[in-house]
């Protein structure tokens, strides 16, 4: 039992960067923009958060830097796809290449550096009074680091925002049918920009969690494809912030299972287990697409540039 609890608790930790990135992409896609630059924005956030954390030793500044870096990446994407109506897919891919270049370049001198002790201490696990006493659930979910708690809160807040507020309703309208939203005098461009940038900031945070807390040292290409898994998780969670929680932790578990099984009686190469998250992503996509229904369809206007003149 103790083994199961420790595995699940570790899965939550491994799933947290995925959760941030998935939430970021959920609101980006809800605004009708398919940003495939998640990996790039995560890497930019990872390097910015780590280098600012290292030089200032300030948690707040590090997180702000990570968000700003992710949002800066998203800004390039937003300008290209929203203002200049460029192709979403290619713009996003280019952003990933750009972000990985930026993080490698500025991370060159950070290789081997370790997160400062005070930042580490800030992100040490803390038990939540009361909740952590719940058997099993408390052990798994409420003896975690503050970043993990931030993930819970964000997912729930975004869910409320999306489904229970006027702005959230407008956002969904923008993603589903921009022409109709425009006719209802919703400022399409503004909505798109705000949510794409916010999405980028969340991806940046996810990256910073990896470099500052999860590793916690600078490693080249620290995301290792997690940004792409996050994009698949958006489909898996059918664009719902609530379901993103479950999906992220499930994939967090897949991410660590190979490592965890080493030294047990199960003898399968770790490299074979390392394929699991990618393999399961494919299976999930295939299953979701095979049992297609209206409820889990993507926003109708996803990836289609909106131009009033062509309405």
């Amino acid at each position: 039992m103790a083994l199961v609890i420790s595995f699940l608790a570790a899965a939550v930790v491994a799933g947290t960067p995925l959760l941030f990135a998935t939430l970021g992409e959920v609101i980006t896609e809800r605004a009708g923009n398919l940003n495939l630059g998640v990996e790039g924005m995560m890497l930019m956030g990872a390097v910015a958060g780590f280098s600012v954390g290292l030089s200032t030793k300030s948690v707040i500044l590090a997180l702000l830097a990570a968000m700003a870096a992710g949002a800066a990446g998203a800004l390039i994407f937003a300008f290209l796809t929203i203002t200049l109506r460029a192709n979403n897919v290619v713009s996003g891919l280019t952003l990933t290449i750009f972000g990985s270049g930026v993080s490698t370049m500025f991370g060159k001198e950070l290789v081997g550096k370790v997160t400062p002790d005070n930042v580490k201490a800030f992100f040490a696990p803390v038990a939540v009074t009361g909740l952590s006493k719940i058997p099993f659930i408390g052990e798994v979910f409420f003896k975690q680091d503050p970043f993990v708690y931030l993930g819970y809160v964000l997912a729930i807040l975004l869910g409320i925002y999306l489904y229970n507020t006027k702005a959230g309703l407008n956002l969904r309208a923008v993603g589903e049918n921009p022409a109709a939203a425009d006719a209802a005098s919703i400022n399409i461009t503004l909505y798109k920009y705000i949510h794409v940038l916010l999405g980028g900031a969340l991806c940046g945070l996810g990256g910073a969690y990896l470099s500052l807390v999860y590793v916690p040292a600078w490693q080249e290409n620290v995301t290792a494809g997690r940004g792409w898994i996050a994009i698949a998780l958006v489909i898996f969670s059918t664009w719902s912030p609530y379901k993103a929680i479950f999906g992220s932790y499930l994939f967090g578990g897949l991410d660590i299972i190979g490592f965890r099984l080493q030294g047990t009686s199960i003898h399968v190469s770790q490299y074979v287990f390392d394929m699991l998250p990618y393999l399961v992503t494919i299976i999930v996509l295939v299953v979701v697409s095979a049992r297609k229904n209206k409820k889990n369809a993507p926003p109708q206007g996803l990836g289609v540039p909106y131009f009033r003149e062509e309405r």
Partner: protein
Amino acid sequence: MFRFVKRSEVNSRTSTKIRVIAILLALLASGIFILLLSLNPLSVYGSMLKGAFGDPYKFKQTIIKAIPLVITSLGVTIAFKMQFWNIGGEGQMIMGAFCASAVAFKFPSMPKPLLLILMIIGGVIGGGVWSLIPAFFKARWKTNETIVTLMMNYIALKWVTYLQYGPWKDPKAKGFPKIANFEENAVLPKLFGIHLGWVIALAMVVLVYIFINKTKKGYEISVLGESENTAKYAGINVNKTIIIALFISGGLCGVAGMIQASAVSNTLSTEVAGGVGFTAIIVSWLSFLSAPAILLVSILFAALLQGGAFIQIVYGIPNAAALILQAMILFFVLGSEFFVRYKLVVKKELAVEGGRA
């Protein structure tokens, strides 16, 4: 007041002008990046050129880097023509290299020409089959191919990692995790000092050009890319077209992988694709999916990579600078397309504002 209106016709002089300006702006923007590193952008660009074309040796290196880029770009282009986002060039290269290597290890004493031909076939099958998997799901259930092809990259990489650390590990490498080198007869011979891959690449440019522009299947692929409904009305078998196009697309990437394994690394390794599959996407897009343009852009990008490696030695700028420069160029060209399609009109009378045409 001003607003953008669609250009009624796009003439090629204007569009070329806009694209050239975009590339210059990209160089300027990257120059600011270089300035941030407190270096002189002009001398850095100069060194890049020198590093790529400065002497025969460097020029050869540039061509060697361009070869896999040309073939892989041609491969992804066939998929892109169909609006099928094949981001899996990297994995298809790796699996092509894997199958070619399996052939090379299986028949170590076969006559060279025969073995090389078998290895190329292995490359086609490895890459082709790897891309058929996402193609099948796309055709059957419209499964998002972007992510499936991408995930397949990681699976291919992990597979070769597994081989390299496990069953295929060279026992003579003193515990170092590497796969044994090929026998000499599995290595592509040279012609004019550069391995035969360049001949294959040139041949592929011509073949793919003919395939896309002059054959029925190629035309069907283009029609399907424009509109699936049109394709259906025209009686095109959509699923069959997807499958065929993707087998060719992946097969080409697989050949590039075979060439890299055979001629460049002389073995299979996790580095065999080395990011070419991703760069190919940029090259393909910058070439507007045209085979002859791919040849030119590939050489330019290879120069960028080779020059990037050179400035790493001279200025200590990390290799990643080349990635940033590539991305910058594509950002600007992507953005410039807007100005190719639309033009800025200054409105003289505000009164017209109310009545939108």
